[in-house]
């Protein structure tokens, strides 16, 4: 075994969702308490928790490297939005921009 990433995640079947949720901090209350208790006695689930954490940090770096691409054809989109404005005005009899002013 060369690194932590080489070990497949294999928690006890009934603990899969619990250990996964614990790894991202979304487990609370009795479920968290039970999972923590189980981890104390189960090395397989402890290893799985580490695997989930490794995966999350990998996804985090993936997220950082692949963030914020821009919408392609802004012009076509704005045209479609103009049509929505026109339709809204025709249906409601209110200009969306004026509606904005009255709200603001």
């Amino acid at each position: 075994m060369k690194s932590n990433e080489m070990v497949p995640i294999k928690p006890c079947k009934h603990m899969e969702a619990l250990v996964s949720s614990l790894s991202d901090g979304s487990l609370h209350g009795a479920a968290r308490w039970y999972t923590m208790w189980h981890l104390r006695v189960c090395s397989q689930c402890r290893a799985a928790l580490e695997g989930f954490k490794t995966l999350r940090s990998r996804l985090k770096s993936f997220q950082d490297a692949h963030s914020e691409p821009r919408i392609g054809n802004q012009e076509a989109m704005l045209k479609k939005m103009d049509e929505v404005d026109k339709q809204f005005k025709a249906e409601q009899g209110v200009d969306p921009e004026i509606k904005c002013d009255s709200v603001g």
Partner: protein
Amino acid sequence: MRSEYMRMLSDCEGKLQRTAYYLTRSQTDAAKDLVQNTVVRGYEAYLRGQFTPGTNMLAWLQRILNNLFLTDENHRKKWETARSAEAPDPLLAVKAGIATEPEAALLSNIFSEPVEKALMELSYEMRVCILLVDVDELDYAQAAYVLGIPVGTVRSRLARARIRLHALLCKQEIEQE
């Protein structure tokens, strides 16, 4: 109204684009269309007061995007089924983002980054959970809202998705050695 909407949208558009890119399995044009349709549909709904101020705009737009994607997929699948009765073409399934396992493996060769490659091999249900929770950092309740499923289902589906994704990454590492 529009300037307010566009201001809120500016925080989300990159994430929407990324989700669309991975849902459509990198079909750039399809991803752009999906995001544009989401933005326009979202604007229509926004004008009608369907967005609740103070709630999460990204989750709201992701829900619209996901619904549009699924509707589009259903239409495409029906078309593919009708078409495959005439002349089966496995590449069409890949292009349509409904690839079976060997086809997905073929498609994954397009991607060089290991995580990206592995992500593309996941089923839609698994991929979208990873994208929403682990990449876009929505909480489980928000992801459940986007997908229209119970929080418990998100929790279990996400666990299975992470296990599968990790297994695919392990497999890649073994193959590289």
